[in-house]
């Protein structure tokens, strides 16, 4: 199984997609952080809540939580890890090398964990360097053990790993790459953000992958729409694992059994 996981990682790192994803992720995070830095300390206005100032101890955890925004990218990598096999028909060689198809899916999930960890490290480093620099320039002090930062860091790792697995499961189920990508992104950005944003809808939203990820991060930040209604962090993690396994098992029983012609 170690060999199979290594082969899956080679598949990802021998094409250009992973660093393209990393670059987009950096740009995406930088954009969010720029906004957060510019608006730091803004007073509540027009019913919008204010943001903590740079020297407020609450600002750093909020900024670091942006590192979990990379989940969309590990989800994309997960989807591609699975669907590009069908798109370029490399699935033929993969299944010839490993005819027990369930092992291929398992190896991909194993690789997904490593990919998630890898992206969590670079995302946290990138976010951390910018955020800490901003805090120091803004005259604040940095305490990486307080403000629930350790829990938050763990949350970033869990979210990115679980979204990679979620993507792999989704890709195994929906073999068409474009359909899986569009489905995954629309789900994450449109449906989830509607269901997750309003506490009234969170009774449903908390059971979806995005809500589960939010629970994992457990940033109790008042968006002015009322108190969040989320699962406990461990519950969020379980929901995400359940989605990934559900997709992988369903895929293993259906799509991956099909004839490769």
């Amino acid at each position: 199984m170690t060999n199979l996981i290594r082969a899956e990682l080679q598949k990802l790192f021998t094409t250009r997609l992973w660093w393209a994803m990393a670059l987009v992720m950096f740009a995406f995070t930088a954009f969010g952080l720029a906004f957060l830095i510019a608006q730091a300390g803004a007073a509540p206005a027009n019913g919008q809540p204010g943001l903590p100032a740079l020297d407020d101890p609450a600002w750093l955890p909020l900024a670091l939580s942006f590192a979990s925004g990379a989940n969309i990218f590990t989800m994309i990598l997960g989807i591609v890890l699975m669907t590009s096999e069908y798109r370029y028909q490399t699935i033929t060689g993969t299944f010839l090398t490993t005819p027990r198809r369930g092992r291929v899916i398992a190896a991909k999930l194993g690789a997904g964990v490593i990919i998630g960890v890898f992206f969590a490290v670079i995302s946290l480093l990138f976010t951390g360097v910018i955020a800490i620099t901003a805090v120091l320039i803004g005259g604040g002090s940095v305490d990486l053990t307080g403000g629930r930062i350790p829990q938050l860091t763990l949350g970033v790792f869990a979210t990115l790993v679980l979204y990679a697995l979620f993507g792999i499961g989704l890709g195994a189920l929906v073999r068409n790459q474009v359909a899986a990508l569009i489905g995954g992104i629309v789900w994450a950005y449109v449906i989830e953000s509607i269901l997750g944003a309003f506490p009234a809808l969170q009774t449903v939203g908390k059971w979806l992958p995005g809500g589960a990820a939010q629970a994992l991060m457990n940033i109790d930040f008042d968006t002015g729409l009322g108190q969040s209604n989320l699962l406990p962090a461990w519950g969020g993690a379980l929901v995400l694992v359940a989605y990934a396994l559900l997709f992988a098992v369903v895929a293993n029983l259906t799509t991956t059994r099909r004839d490769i012609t």
Partner: protein
Amino acid sequence: MTAIEIRNLSKSFGAVRAVDDVSFTVEAGTVTGYLGPNGAGKTTTLRSLLGLVTPDTGEALVNGQRYASLSHPLGEVGAVLEATSFHPGRTARDHLRILTTAAGLPATRPDEALEQVGLADAARKRVGGFSLGMRQRLALAGALLGQPKIFILDEPANGLDPAGIQWLRGFLRHLARDTGAAVLVSSHVLAEVEQTVDNVVIIAKGRMIRQGTLAELTGNGGGAVRVRTKDDFAPALRAAGAQVEEVEPGLLRVKGMDAEEIGRLALDQRVLLTEVIHERSDLQSVFLELTGEGAAP
């Protein structure tokens, strides 16, 4: 043990019966040509053999086992399916490295295999820029990675230039003769494999039409003899019991007598023959006749 055994294999896709009760075997050290027009069911047979397609009935075994139960498939069977199964953004060497890693083979194998198929110079180039012929060679390199003793090749000559086809023929011969491998190679162009194969299996519309050795198939040509003479020889031949057809003035097509009998008769009759040739229907016409792709000339 029989290297490749296909027993009463049938497979339908929807209403289309792609393979219908096909059975044949391939022994070690021989090359078997699996011939048929496009859409005859060759690819489906080979993919069933490789566990990619699940047959409806019958069995397809390699070394007596189903492909999916082999513990080291790349070490037992090398397969070339279609030349499109590559990620265009990956280099040739990386493509092979991934298979090598997954199969747990020595890390030196990709370079050795690329060397063997003459692709060493292109090892670090992206496959997206490869010609069809180069992709075929890369696919073959993939089949060689595990140094197997069974090769299953689907239309490997597709996209190769004449020099490439020549090279492939020599290579397949080498695999069978020198390494004792069993080679099953499909083709819809008989000329590509004619000089390479020991045995042939001919399939059309999913059904097996003929199988035998190359000699058996070519020996089925009808046994006519072409005789060229300026003398009036036909009456004497007819008198001797032969059927004679005048193809053109001075050229007779004789059935029912062999060349020696004709020569002896000519000697008796003091007839001068300028040419006596056994008309051998070559495999191509057998193939075309059998598959209904055209009448024999």
